[in-house]
C-alpha cells in the first residue's frame, strides 16, 4: 500500500525539502526501541562471554599464576590463595556475575588479571588500529567491488562468467593464506611494502587488502546479481531511450540499486571483520584488538575477553545502525521502516 495520497502534501512550501518524513513521537519511539535492543544485545553478549569463559576447563587462579611464572604445572592451594582472594575467584559464580554487571553499569570493565591495567585502557590502546584497519579494508573492498562489477556485469555471458568466477574465488580465499601470499610477493619478494607494517599509511595497504579482497568477492556476488537485474529493468530501458550511454546508465542508475544488498551485508561484515582482523594482525604483526583477544583468551584474562566482546558487539550494533542510515540515504523510499 502506497502511503502518499496526493492531497496530503500538496501544499508545498517553497525552499523547504518536500516529502521529508515527519519527525515526532514515532521517531522517538523508534530510536528508543533501537537503544533498548542494543543494550539487550550487549547484555546478552557480555553474559554469554562471562559464562563461556567461566566454563573453561582448569582453575583460573592456576592460569594466572602459571602465566606469571611461565610454567604449566598444578599448583597448591597455598600458592593460589592470594590470587583467589585478590580476584574473588572463590565467590559463587552468580555473585561474580552480578558484581561484574554492577561494574558494567558504571562503565567499569574491570582490571586485567595479567597486565594489572584497566580493561578500558587496554582496549583503548588497541582499538584505533583495528578500527582503522577495518574501515580501510571496507573502503578497499567497496572500491574493488564497485569497479570490478561495473566493468564486468552484464557484458555478455563470457565476461560475466569470468567476473563471477573471480567473485567466487575471491570470496573463498582464506584470509591468512591470502595475507601470507601478499606478504610473500609484495613485501618479501618485491619489497614494495614493509614487512612489519606498524600503523603507517603504507603499512596498512597489504593488511587491508588481505581483508578487503575476500570481502569484495563476497559483496560482489550479491551486487552482481542485483546489477544484472537492474540492467534489465524498465527504468534502465527508459534511460536508454532518453539517449543515455551505457557508462552513464551503469554509474548513475544501476549502481545505486545494485549496491543495496551489499550495504546490508557491509553491516554484518563490519562486525565480522574482527575475526579476520585477528588473523591479519597475526600475519602482519600489527597491533590491534584481535591480538589482544587471542592472548586474553589463551591466558583466561576474563575481564579483557568480556570487554572485547562488549566492544565488538557495540561495534556490530553501531555498524548496523550506520547501515540502516546508509540504506535510507541510498533508497529513500523508507520501505524497510520498522
Amino acid at each position, binding site marked *: 500500500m502506497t502511503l502518499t495520497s496526493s492531497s496530503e502534501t500538496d501544499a508545498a512550501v517553497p525552499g523547504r525539502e518536500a516529502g521529508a518524513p515527519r519527525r515526532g513521537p514515532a521517531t522517538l519511539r523508534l530510536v528508543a526501541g533501537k537503544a533498548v535492543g542494543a543494550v539487550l544485545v550487549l547484555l546478552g553478549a557480555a553474559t554469554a562471554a562471562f559464562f563461556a569463559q567461566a566454563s573453561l576447563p582448569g582453575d583460573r587462579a592456576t592460569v594466572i599464576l*602459571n602465566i606469571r611464572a611461565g610454567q604449566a604445572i598444578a*599448583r597448591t592451594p597455598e600458592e593460589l590463595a*592470594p590470587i583467589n582472594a585478590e580476584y574473588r575467584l572463590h565467590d559463587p559464580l552468580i555473585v561474580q556475575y552480578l558484581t561484574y554487571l554492577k561494574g558494567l553499569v558504571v562503565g567499569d570493565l574491570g582490571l586485567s588479571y595479567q*597486565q594489572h591495567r584497566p580493561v578500558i585502557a587496554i582496549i583503548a590502546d588497541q582499538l584505533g588500529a583495528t578500527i582503522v584497519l577495518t574501515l580501510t579494508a571496507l573502503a578497499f573492498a567497496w572500491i574493488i567491488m564497485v569497479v570490478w562489477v561495473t566493468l564486468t556485469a552484464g557484458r555478455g555471458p563470457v565476461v560475466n562468467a569470468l567476473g563471477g568466477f573471480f567473485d567466487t574465488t575471491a570470496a573463498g580465499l582464506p584470509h591468512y593464506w591470502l595475507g601470507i601470499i601478499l606478504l610473500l610477493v609484495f613485501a618479501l619478494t618485491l619489497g614494495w611494502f614493509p614487512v612489519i607494517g606498524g600503523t603507517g599509511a603504507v603499512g596498512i595497504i597489504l593488511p587491508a587488502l588481505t581483508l578487503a579482497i575476500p570481502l569484495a568477492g563476497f559483496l560482489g556476488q550479491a551486487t552482481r546479481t542485483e546489477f544484472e537485474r537492474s540492467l534489465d529493468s524498465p527504468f534502465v530501458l527508459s534511460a536508454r531511450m532518453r539517449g543515455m550511454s551505457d557508462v552513464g546508465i551503469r554509474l548513475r542508475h544501476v549502481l545505486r540499486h545494485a549496491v543495496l544488498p551489499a550495504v546490508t551485508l557491509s553491516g554484518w561484515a563490519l562486525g565480522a571483520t574482527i575475526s579476520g582482523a585477528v588473523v591479519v*594482525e597475526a600475519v602482519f604483526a600489527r597491533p590491534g584488538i584481535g591480538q589482544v583477544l587471542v592472548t586474553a583468551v589463551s591466558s583466561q584474562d576474563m575481564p579483557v575477553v568480556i570487554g572485547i566482546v562488549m566492544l565488538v558487539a557495540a561495534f556490530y550494533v553501531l555498524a548496523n545502525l550506520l547501515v540502516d542510515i546508509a540504506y535510507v540515504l541510498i533508497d529513500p523510499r523508507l520501505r524497510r521502516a520498522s
Partner: protein
Amino acid sequence: MTPRPHSIAAIVAATAALLALSGCAATGAEPAPAGELVEGGTITYAHQQEPACVFGGWIEQAYLSYNVLDSLVSLDADHEVVPWLAESWSVSDDGLQWTFELKPDVKFTDGSDLTAEVVAYNFDHWVNQGGNSTAFAWLGGYYESATAVDDLTVQVDLSSPYPRLADNLTQGYFGIQSQQALETRSDEENCASPIGSGAFVVDHWDRGQEIVLTRNDEYTSPPANAEHTGPAYVDEIVWKFVADATTRVAALKSGEVDAIYDVPAVQWDATGDAGFELLKYVTPGRPQQLTFNTAQGVFTDEKVRQAFAYAIDREEIVESIGRGVIPYEGNGGVSQTTPGYSQKAADWYSQDVDKAAELLDEAGWTGEDSDGTRTKDGEPLQVTLPYFAGSIINADGASILQGVQEQAAKSGFKVDLIPVPQAEAFAGAYSQPDERDIYPGYWTAVTSGILHINWGAGAGGEPNNWNASFTDYPELQAIILAANSEPDVDAQNALYEQAQEYIAEHALAIGVYDRLSTLAVSPGLQGVWQENAQGGPTFYDAHFVQ
C-alpha cells in the same frame, strides 16, 4: 658495509658445545670492526613473545628485565660469576650465610638509592610476597632471611648450604628493583615499567606491538663482563613483538629491524650468508627432553621405557629437522652447556630396533594389532605425549616430536601426539599422572641444580609438582641433595653426573635436543651479546658503526 665473513664463518662452523660455552663469539676480542662507533641511535629489535609484565618469573620477562634491572651478580662467558651490583661476596664456612658487598653510589631511576636494605627487601619480595614465582622455585627450600648489615652489606641466611646461590642469582629473575617504587606505585606501573638501576628505562609499552626502552643517562653500574662503562651507547631500543619467525627474518633482511630473536633452523644458513651476524646460545639447564610417567601406565615398566629409548634415532631426527643448527642432546637430565654435564648419560641409548623389540617381548608386549602397534593382553601399546605448542615447543620442536612419533611407531609404540594450546597448558591440562605418559619440555638454569627442581622431593610433605615422572626416587634425590650442598665444585659436578647417569640407566628421561636462544644482528650494529645465564639479548654495549 661489507659483512665479516671471518666471524660469521667461525660461528657457523663452531661446534655447538664450544660455541655455547663461549656464549658469543663476538663478546671477547672485537674482531676488527669495519667502521667507526657511532653514539646514539635507535635499535629496533624484533622479539617473539610478549609477556604481560616486564618483570616476572617467565624467561620472556627475564630477557626484558635484564636490560632494565641490574642483578647482584652476572655470569661471564666462561661461566664464572662476576660482580654487578655486588662488588664482592662471601660464604660462611657452614655454607649457610652469604654476604654481599654492594657497589656504592648506585641510584635507581626513580632517584632512590641502592642500599642493602633495598636488596634485602627484594629478596623478601621474591620469596615471601609472591613477587617472582621462579625465584621462589630456586630459593624456596633454602632461603631463610635477608638482612641489611650496614648500608652496603646484605646478609642472606639459608636453611641448608647452597653453594651455587650466586650462579643462580645471575638469572634475570633476580633483578633488583627500587623499594620505593615497589611500595608506592601501582601493580600496573610495576608490571609495565619496573624501576631498576639498569642501563635502560621503560619509556612506554604499546601493547601488542612494542616496548620502547630509553637510555639511562646516569648509568654507573654495568656488570663486570660488559665491554664498557658508563651509559649505553644507543639512545633507544624499540623492542618489537613479532610472533612469526618468517616475518622477523624478512624484516631483518629488509632493514626494518636491526636484530631479531629466534632464527628458525631452516633460515639459519641463508641469514648468515646474507651477511648477518648470527648468535647462538645453547641454554644450560634441562634440555628439551622426554620424561616418562613412571607412576602410571605402560612406562612404569623400565623395560618399556628403555625400549622406547632404543626405538628411536633421536640424533638423526634432530640433525635432519634441525638442519644442523639445533644441537642433538642425548642427556635427559641437563644440557651439554650445563656445568656437571655427563656425556656418559648422554650416550646411554642409541637406536637399536632389535633391542627395543627384545625388551618389549620381555615386558610381555608380544601381540600386534593391524596398525603394527604392539599389544599385551589385548591392550595396545599406546602412549600419550602432550606438548605445549607454540610456547614451550616451537615449530621445529613439533616436527622433531613428529619424527619421534613416526619412529616409535615402527617399533610398535602408538604415540598420541597432542598439541596443547597455551590456555590449557597454563590451566594445568595434562599435569596429572593419569593424563600423560611422556612429558616433553625444558627449563633454563645456570647450574645442574635444576635436577633438584625436576627430580627432588617436594617440600613439607607436598608432592613436587615439577617432577614430571610423578615418582620419588629416594636414591636419586639423595645424590642431588648431596650435590646441591657440596661446596667443592668438582665433587659437586661428579655427584650431578652420577644423578644424570641414574636417570639414564633407569630411563626416567631421555634427551632430545638442546634449547637455543638465537639472535641475528645486522652488520651495522655491533656489540650485541647474549647474557650468559639464559641467552637473552643484551644491548648495553650495542652500538651502530659507520
